[in-house]
């Protein structure tokens, strides 16, 4: 029995020694973690990750394509007091606080004397650099408190204000601030994917869901500053567009207007200007009307600029050639007993190209009669009308194709020349861009990159081809016709020295409830791209209800000319289009695979 007892003690000793070795290893590890690593930066980062829960993440920056700051957040202090809890003499406290807060002593004294109150705000928006002084005062006087808040600042003021937008405390708003709110606040992973449907062209970057790997790691997500959003906008082109638009709107007393400049071969938005504008630094003071981004939100009847759809369809379907003769009924065409279509001037036999040069409504009706309304409708949809373009901006209007879907004689007397349907300016310029790209419909986009706070790229957007609408040779034929419109047709004032411009004018009467098409109220547009032989930029200008001239060739074309001329000069001087973009675009299949869930659910998109 005793021998057994000795043996069991030995065994116990062995077990204990083994346990002690384990303990020693554990202690060694603890020492390593607590002492050796703790003093390093990694140790501090770990603690910051823990403390982040109690710290507000500072919103990231919004930058233009050249890293110019368009919007960023600054920390500010709100200094408050609990007068009932304050033991010191209010006069002394007010005397100390006044020079730091920059508030008159009497005003502070009045607040501090309200002993029946438990909370009074002494000053909001105090500069964060005053923090050490305020902390000293907090220690000295019981009852003085402060809180750290964030304030968004926009150094360029009005510039791109509609694109930048705004987001309120309830996370509701518009523009990039709203669309990328999660990203700007640094929410990592899945929620970011929802906002970024664009795949890169490199297949290795696309994960199983079809989204791009965002390369988020724990270190990045533990940062207390949100991600930065780099836009495709160019500050200078945006400035030109805004300045010229405002000048034109004021000259012609237009109610509103918009200018969009797209990079033709990629679909990047280089400028998106709206009139009236507002200063985002004083968002609440601005007029609600002025806050709307008309380029994506405003649906209007486009007028004659829509004629490119029917004419390109006729060419692509080989129903007509540019020289096919069309009889324009000497300017008066009776469609039905009640419906008579008139042209501005009497026109007899015109070729298809001349129908566009002279912008004949009757000629365009004849074209649609020739191709058939089903084919016309198919092309309208192929060009992307009636659906959102998918640009990464909120509240995009999809337009309205009611008259196209319920086709009758009234539709025939309106839709071929851009009446009876609603489109957005962005849809319209994107449709024109089909001709500039040689027949491909691209998805326009306004976000170029998502960067972390250290400037490392987490995500880059690339152009996406939605579908081919026209054959390349038809796109070339259409380009030549549109060049003719500018060189010898209704758009002569849109000519730009040194470049061949392809463009089209459009004057659309505005319909009013109960009145119908009112005379004297028109929407005037001009859209074009240049250089016609190697398109670099596509521009649309639109002015709503301008006064003082009858045709868009007199109002919109000169505005186009000014924007295009200055933009081309800038592009040339800065070698803007140095090839840093991929030459190949993702295929349609790839695009469908990457369709974000929220578009598919709404039946929108492609």
């Amino acid at each position: 029995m005793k021998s057994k007892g000795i043996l069991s003690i030995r065994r116990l000793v062995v077990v204990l020694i083994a346990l002690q070795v384990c303990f020693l290893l554990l202690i060694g590890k603890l020492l390593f973690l607590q002492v050796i690593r703790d003093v390093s930066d990694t140790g501090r980062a770990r603690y910051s990750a823990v403390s982040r829960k109690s710290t507000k993440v500072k919103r990231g920056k919004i930058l233009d394509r050249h890293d110019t700051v368009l919007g960023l957040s600054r920390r500010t202090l709100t200094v408050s007091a609990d007068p009932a809890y304050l033991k010191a003499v209010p006069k002394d406290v007010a005397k100390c606080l006044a020079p730091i807060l920059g508030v008159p002593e009497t005003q502070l004294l009045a607040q501090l004397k309200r002993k029946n109150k438990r909370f009074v705000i002494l000053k909001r928006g105090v500069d964060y650099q005053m923090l050490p002084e305020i902390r000293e005062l907090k220690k000295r006087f019981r009852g003085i408190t402060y809180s750290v808040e964030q304030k968004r600042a926009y150094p360029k003021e009005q510039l791109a204000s509609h694109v930048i937008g705004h987001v309120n405390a309830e996370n509701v708003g518009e523009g990039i601030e709203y669309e990328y709110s999660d990203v700007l606040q640094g929410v990592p992973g899945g929620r970011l994917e929802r906002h970024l449907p664009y795949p890169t062209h490199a297949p290795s970057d696309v994960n199983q869901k079809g989204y791009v790997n965002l390369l988020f790691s724990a270190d990045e997500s533990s940062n207390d500053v949100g991600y930065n959003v780099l836009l495709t906008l160019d500050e200078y082109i945006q400035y030109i567009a805004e300045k010229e638009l405002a000048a034109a709107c004021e000259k012609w007393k237009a109610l509103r207007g918009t200018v969009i400049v797209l990079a033709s071969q990629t679909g990047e938005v280089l400028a998106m200007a709206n009139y009236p504008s507002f200063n985002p630094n004083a968002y609440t003071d601005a007029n609600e009307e002025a806050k709307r981004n008309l380029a994506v939100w405003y649906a209007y009847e486009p007028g004659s600029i829509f004629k490119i759809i029917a004419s390109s369809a006729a060419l692509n379907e080989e129903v007509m050639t540019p020289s096919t003769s069309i009889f324009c009924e000497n300017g008066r065409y009776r469609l039905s007993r009640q419906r008579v279509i008139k042209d501005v001037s009497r026109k007899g036999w015109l070729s298809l190209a001349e129908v566009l040069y002279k912008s004949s409504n009757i000629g365009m009706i004849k074209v649609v009669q020739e191709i058939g309304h089903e084919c016309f409708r198919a092309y309208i949809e192929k060009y992307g009308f009636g659906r959102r373009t998918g640009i990464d901006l909120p509240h995009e209007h999809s337009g309205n194709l009611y008259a196209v879907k319920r086709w009758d004689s009234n539709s025939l007397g309106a839709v071929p020349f851009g009446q009876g349907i609603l489109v957005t300016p962005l849809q319209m310029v994107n449709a024109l861009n089909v001709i500039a790209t040689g027949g491909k419909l691209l998805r326009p986009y306004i976000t170029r990159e998502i960067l972390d706070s250290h400037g490392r790229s987490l995500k880059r957007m690339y152009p996406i081809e939605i579908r081919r609408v026209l054959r390349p040779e038809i796109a070339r034929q259409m380009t030549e016709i549109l060049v003719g419109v500018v060189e010898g047709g209704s758009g002569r004032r849109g000519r730009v020295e040194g470049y061949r411009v392809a463009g089209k004018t459009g004057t659309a009467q505005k319909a009013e409830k109960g009145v119908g098409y009112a005379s004297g109220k028109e929407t005037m547009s001009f859209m074009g791209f240049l250089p016609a032989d190697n398109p670099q930029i596509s521009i649309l200008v639109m002015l709503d209800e301008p006064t003082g001239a009858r045709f868009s060739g007199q109002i919109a074309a000169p505005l186009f000319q000014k924007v295009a001329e200055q933009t081309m000069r800038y592009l040339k001087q800065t070698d803007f289009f140095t090839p840093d973009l991929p030459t190949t675009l993702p295929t349609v299949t790839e695009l469908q695979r990457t369709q974000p869930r929220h578009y598919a659910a709404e039946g929108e998109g492609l």
Partner: protein
Amino acid sequence: MQSSHQYTSRKSKTAESPRKRSFPYIYIVLGLCFCIFAGSVWFSSYAKNVALQRMPAYQRQKHYIQDEIHQLELEEAALTSVERIRSLVDELGLVEPSEAARRIYEK
């Protein structure tokens, strides 16, 4: 024979046992181990406490510097804005270089 051998061996073991019992090194090791463990717990909590106490100060310092950088960025963005540069150009009566002038300059 067998029984006497068993007796002898049992006797010799009983004679050795009091010496082994008098050296309870196992308890010393256990005690030491406990002390080290307790020490490590104390030290780790102390280290963490110190770190957490220092954290807000580090954080404030970081925010302070961040804010200063952002303020400078704001000022820089305001200074380099196209509008301001254009107004300065107008004020100073400067003109943009012509195409010919630019070509000469580039040469």
